[in-house]
């Protein structure tokens, strides 16, 4: 293809810069001392340290899961530093106390922390490596009784809520990466929406990895009380580095009677370079519990970054009439690999789940959908609709689908549709004949392919997601 394309594909990851701030790093290595250090840094109560240590001891007995359709060299967990915070004022009391270098980082990322500059109606929690630096609109939200803060702060100020819910959806012994996270988690967001409150703005967390040779272990907990509603969004970026970096997160959602949680992700971690060098390893456990009747949890994800994505946002549909949804776009270009999907566990009566997955593979990318729909034996009249579509761009990439369906109650209605297609030469030519460049044609067609998922995103972010997809596709044709 033309010279222009080469130029474009080299410029594509515009979030790859590094912030020069002095940071305090925990010594490399994972042991009980490391965990004690993290817990001390965070001023944690004894019960939480014990919980972490219990997880660590469990983790020592576990093995990395091998079932995913992913290939990567062995991770040396003792070569990672598990904690990094800015030396200067890691716990700023106000915006003025934040290191200007860091503040300008967020400006560059398009996430200004000043409330008046921020998109109206979006509150932001800014997590930089292992610490949450600042949360906007906290006071305003508090007027409605909403708690939106970092998980570290929640541990200090709302220990009863954290103690009650932490590990209640993803237990500390759940899986290798979740157990690791339980031992060493550093920061993430905490959201509590009281009974009957409809959260008046979008809540969001912006995760930034900056320090070298560190891992980021975010932990997020969202609780929606009876009849409440919240829409939450997370975004993620990291600098370009030759080494792989680990991000192992756990997110737990709890929706009580008649509550709704919408959780959206725009994941744009550094994907590695053209040769597949570097990039983030993204091993994430996300699970929501529809605990109450008529509750609803909806996951929407746009995964365009990371060298490796291993992620299955799931719903446990306990409450009668509860609804679980999973809308996903996963794009792998260059040498990226993704194994992603969902689990929908139907336990209550009349529970309903919808899965729409769009996988796009370009370059040497490998993209797998893996999903489980399980209808429990006491779940009467459960319904599931699954649609997974894969699109291939070029002839060096791959798309794979691994659907698992387990039905133990004969009243269930299941629908499953799947398709795999190559991006149509005819479609590209048609657009070109109308005047669009090949790149723009591909981007237009792929965005059309993802429409059903994008329309689930909050409006401003849907626009962002479309742009991001176009940028991530650059260099994929020709």
């Amino acid at each position, binding site marked *: 293809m033309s010279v222009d394309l080469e130029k474009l594909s080299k410029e594509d990851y515009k979030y790859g810069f590094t912030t020069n701030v002095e940071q305090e790093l925990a010594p490399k290595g994972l042991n009980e001392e490391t965990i004690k250090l993290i817990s001390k840094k965070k001023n944690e109560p004894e019960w939480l340290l014990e919980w972490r240590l219990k997880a660590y001891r469990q983790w020592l007995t576990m093995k990395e899961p091998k079932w995913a359709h992913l290939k990567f060299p062995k991770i040396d967990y003792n070569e990672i530093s598990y904690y990094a915070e800015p030396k200067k004022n890691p716990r700023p009391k106000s915006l003025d106390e934040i290191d200007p270098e860091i503040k300008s980082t967020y400006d560059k990322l398009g996430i200004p922390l000043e409330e008046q500059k921020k998109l109206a109606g979006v509150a932001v929690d800014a997590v930089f490596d292992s610490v949450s630096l600042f949360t906007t609109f906290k006071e305003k939200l508090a007027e409605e009784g909403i708690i939106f803060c970092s998980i570290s702060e929640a541990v200090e100020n709302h220990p009863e809520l954290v103690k009650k819910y932490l590990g209640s959806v993803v237990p500390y012994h759940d899986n290798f990466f979740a157990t690791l996270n339980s031992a060493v988690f550093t920061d993430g967001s905490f959201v509590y929406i009281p009974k009957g409150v409809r959260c008046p703005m979008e809540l969001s967390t912006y995760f930034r990895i900056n320090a070298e040779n560190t891992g980021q272990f975010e932990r997020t907990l969202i609780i929606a009380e009876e009849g409440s509603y919240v829409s939450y969004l997370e975004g993620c970026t990291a600098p370009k580095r030759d080494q792989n970096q680990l991000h192992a997160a756990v997110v737990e959602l709890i929706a009580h009677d008649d509550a709704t949680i919408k959780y959206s992700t725009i994941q744009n971690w550094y994907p590695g370079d053209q040769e597949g060098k570097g990039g983030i390893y993204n091993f994430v456990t996300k699970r929501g519990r529809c605990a109450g009747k008529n509750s609803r949890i909806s996951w929407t994800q746009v995964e365009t970054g990371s060298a490796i994505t291993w992620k299955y946002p799931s719903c446990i549909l306990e409450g009668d009439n509860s609804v679980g949804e999973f809308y996903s776009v996963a794009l792998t270009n260059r040498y990226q690999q993704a194994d992603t999907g969902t689990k929908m566990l139907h336990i209550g009566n009349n529970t309903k789940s919808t899965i729409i997955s769009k996988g796009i593979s370009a370059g040497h990318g490998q993209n797998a959908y893996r999903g489980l729909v399980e209808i429990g034996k006491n779940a009467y009249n459960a319904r599931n609709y699954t649609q997974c579509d894969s699109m291939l761009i070029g002839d060096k990439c791959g798309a794979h689908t691994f659907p698992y369906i387990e039905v133990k109650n004969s009243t269930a209605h299941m629908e499953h549709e799947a398709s795999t297609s190559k991006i*149509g030469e005819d479609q590209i030519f048609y657009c*070109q*004949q*109308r*005047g*669009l460049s*090949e790149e*723009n044609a591909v981007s*237009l067609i792929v965005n059309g392919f*993802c429409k059903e998922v994008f329309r689930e995103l909050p409006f401003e972010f849907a626009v962002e997601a479309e742009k991001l997809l176009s940028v991530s596709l650059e260099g994929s044709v020709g």
Partner: protein
Amino acid sequence: MLEIRNLHVKIEDKEILKGLNLTINEGEIHSIMGPNGSGKSTLAQVLAGRDTYEVTEGEVVFKGKDLLDMAPEDRACEGVFMAFQYPVEIPGVANNYLLREALNAKREYNGLEPLKHIDFTKLAKEKMKNLDMDESMLRRAVNQGFSGGEKKRNEIFQMQILDPSLAILDETDSGLDIDALKVVAKGVIDMKSPERSFLIITHYQRLLNYIVPDFVHVLVDGKIAKSGGKELALELEEKGYGWVEEAVNA
């Protein structure tokens, strides 16, 4: 406007066009007719820039520029439009979105400001009215679930918006009932101008009852075997293509 000299084209190892010559001047309507497999659609595709065909010899000059050297999108922006024989479906992409992107790409190429959303919508609605199209088609995905007639009408609609200097219609009449045919023909006639040329590829004479061509060419075995005025189309309708083919082979 367009000058095709000694054009040879092959696909895989089969030669389809074997030394085709054709000159189209500003404001002229040319019709190319011919039996199946004579190379009519190949000619349209090659002019539009489809890369599955290989040009082995010859040249095509469009408005003084080497057309074959240009990318398909540049040809479009220079003013070449092709109404497809089989318009492709593009799921999830709204019809008006593609068309606005296309129009603005063309405007940008020609150093013009992009057209504002509201002005585009106004323009689109006006054109649709003339083509007896429902406005809901703007929001529908490109060609998806369109009937045969709707697809062809949509092609003419796109042509009207993009305002080309050379419009190539590749068997736009095939699969149309008589009412749709009239609408399509009217859409073309409305666009007739001294600056615009048409190349109408068709199998049958019936479209030419409505769009009267200045020249009719018969394509046989990759070459123009016979050219004439509009009366040639009637003669072909009456006698078929056999006598032209025989004359070539004689």
